[in-house]
């Protein structure tokens, strides 16, 4: 069963490298933010898979935290791109 997670991890790493192309060369800034959001979601699954490969149950907490951070990053980035500033105080 461990090699199933190993195959999943390698596949997810390959898809991350593929979507890195859009993140770096994306025509506009919005393509880049969307690609970073995609990479964030994939890193979460990669963390869970690696946690199972190395038998570390703590990795699930790390991926939960990373999911929250990725979500907040996307929101702040889209607010900045929409309004030009984040906290107007």
């Amino acid at each position: 069963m461990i090699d199933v997670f190993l195959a999943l991890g390698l596949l997810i790493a390959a898809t991350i490298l593929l979507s890195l192309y859009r993140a770096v060369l994306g025509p506009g800034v919005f393509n880049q933010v969307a690609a970073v959001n995609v990479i964030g979601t994939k890193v979460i699954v990669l963390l869970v898979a690696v946690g199972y490969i190395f038998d570390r149950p703590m990795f699930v907490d790390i991926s939960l935290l990373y999911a929250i951070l990725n979500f907040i990053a996307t929101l702040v980035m889209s607010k900045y791109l929409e309004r030009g500033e984040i906290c107007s105080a």
Partner: protein
Amino acid sequence: MFSIINIIATILIAGGAFFMVTGVLGLLRFPDFYTRLHATGKCDTLGEVLVIVGCMVYQGWSFITIKLFFLMFFIFLANPVGTHAIMKAAYLTGLKPWKKGEERR
């Protein structure tokens, strides 16, 4: 090794991996920002949920399963909201959608 639990978990994880690959395929191949959000927003969320449910099935009933459920539930809510936020920002700042016949943007 070939107990029924492992087979079900493997099938779920394979399905999740399939949707993640198609999500990236859409991200690279689609002509415009909005169409790319179509592919990644839906396929990534479903792929991630399937993989996490596969891990939950493999894990059985333990504390980690509850954490995995919270992770899956949060992603199921957060990913569409993030996609909507970035789409709204792009639309309000005047990024025109792609029409058939135009060149890739």
